């Protein structure tokens, strides 16, 4: 799996292939995560690309305290927040927007499992921070502490958020099932 080794190689040697491996490994998941902020996949795609450009240019120090993925997601998440702040936009709290063909295509390639895709779509009905924590924990298989790190929250706060998000998710699923 691409990650810190490739990033280190890129930073030290400027190896473009290492950078490409990182992009290949993380782009789709990152886009879907960023979609939980932006509500649309195309803006999420732009921000994900911006995030890759940012690390490619600035080569920020990865200190190994968390996984490379956690670190990358945190950077991109911060950029998404900046983006929303700049645009003065907010994703409707109860709706993540209509799915486009690109959304569906990405879901099919990244999530694959139909049942999980259905759950993913239900996520779109949740508030942004619920979407984010659930995506990280249930679709990215992150530990709570890593999800907390990505979202800039304490572990305790993340646990509380997961609890609330699950409860809300259950309500949403009950509506459609």
């Amino acid at each position, binding site marked *: 799996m691409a990650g810190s080794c490739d990033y280190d190689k890129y930073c030290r040697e400027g190896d473009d292939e290492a950078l490409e491996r990182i992009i290949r490994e993380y782009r789709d998941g990152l886009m879907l995560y960023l979609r939980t902020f932006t509500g649309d996949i195309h803006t999420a795609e732009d921000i994900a690309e911006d995030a890759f450009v940012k690390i490619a240019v600035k080569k920020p*120090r990865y200190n190994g305290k968390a996984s490379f993925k956690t670190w990358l997601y945190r950077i991109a998440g911060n950029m998404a927040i900046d983006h929303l702040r700049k645009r003065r936009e907010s994703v409707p709290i109860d709706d993540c927007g209509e799915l486009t063909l690109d959304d569906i295509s990405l879901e099919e390639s990244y999530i694959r499992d139909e049942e999980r895709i259905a759950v993913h779509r239900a996520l779109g009905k949740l508030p942004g921070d619920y979407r984010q924590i659930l995506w990280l924990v249930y679709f990215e298989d992150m530990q709570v502490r890593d999800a907390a790190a990505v979202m800039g929250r304490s572990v305790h706060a993340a646990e509380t958020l997961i609890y609330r998000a699950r409860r809300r998710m259950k309500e949403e699923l009950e509506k459609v099932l």
Partner: protein
Amino acid sequence: MKSIEETARSVISRRDEELRRIRKRNRRLAAALSAGAAVFAIAAAMIVTGRVSGNKDTASAVNSSLSGENAGTETVVNATETDIIWMNEGYGDEFQRHSTLGASADAVSYNGGRDGSIGIQADFCEKVLSAASDDSLIAFSFNASKGTAAGIDKMQEELSNECYLLSGRADEALFTAAERLEKDKNITNAEAMARATGDSEYLRLVGEYREKAEEYERYLRSVHYERNKDTIETFEKLGFTVISKGTDDDFDRYLCFGSGGAVIAGTKEQIDALSLEDFEGVEHITLYGSSKADLPRIYGEPKRIVHLREDSKLTDELLAAYEENGGAALKVRIKPGWDDDLWGEWVDPHVYAYEAIGLHSEEEFNEAGPDILTSEKVDLFYEVLNKYTYWVNEERFGSFFKEGELIEARGYAWDLIAELTCERALELCENKCIAYITLPDLNESEGIESIALDE
């Protein structure tokens, strides 16, 4: 949606383009530095606060945000996008207090000056104004010294009502400025800020900040002389005029002498090794120790600039309060914090040093007392502390002054700050704003050259 391959190609292409831009800018910077001879740069660390909105008419946006029943966030937020550029005069004790206590952590800081350099202030600000987009809202945070008070008039005269005064000063200057605002604009500056951010919490922080500033000063007065006695004596032996020793009333006044000033931090041995030649052209030295690192710092009098920021919890609180209200704040922090901005975490270098000797916090260290630092631990403690703290590279120390090289350092280094602030300023302003780096010639007391770091 792009394919992954297309994304990769786009990323690499954009990276190359960005690197070309950076290299071009660095060449210009290097050329300017070379022309400037022995230079310590950064007069204007431009930090731009957030994107808020106002209507296209800057002046009316400002005015509307500062007056009326519905003043504040609602007015500011609902209109067209605008950049607020919050400029901090960055002079003297105001500068230092802002730096150490974080009163205006997000600001344009530049080397102002007292009565004699008002023209420079106005000139500088005019350049910024002309460079900013038409719908930028520009606020100035000033020290309320006599010269600045005059400068305010001058600025307002020259720049009409496009500038506004915001300040979070801890002492009487705050009130002086507030009085002026009350008189001129029928508003206090604390209120102005609170309204501009729509944040009543800010008022509480300002109050807390005042208390902390006073506490801080009391602390400095009580400990610094003892800490730095040896170093002060060393400098006196070298023939320097040590203005501040931390023992008299002037300390307060001169504590934050540097409206700039080259910051020199080093071990006692490094400091002891200095010679007069190292300070050629430096007229005054103010010396005091760091509240944290127990390192001596030396500030050279004007035209040698540093943007110094020590982080504090309060800084974070103020920034957080500001950010919550729509501001985008940039924190320039000492390593290892600065590049952790992306990560959003800053760790006091001492934490690492404490950990190295088996402690977990400053509190534990204090409880244990100095005896905890056995001979082995002292070495380890400072070895780790040094690793993460700004140190002058002794080998380049002389050339720092003599040849105008950018100092290679971690933390408060000019190039680092220039990169971060200018990059971020440009980014935040969507490349509409220009960050200036002033490059005063060591031998020209009045000289200020500016280069525009535009696109």
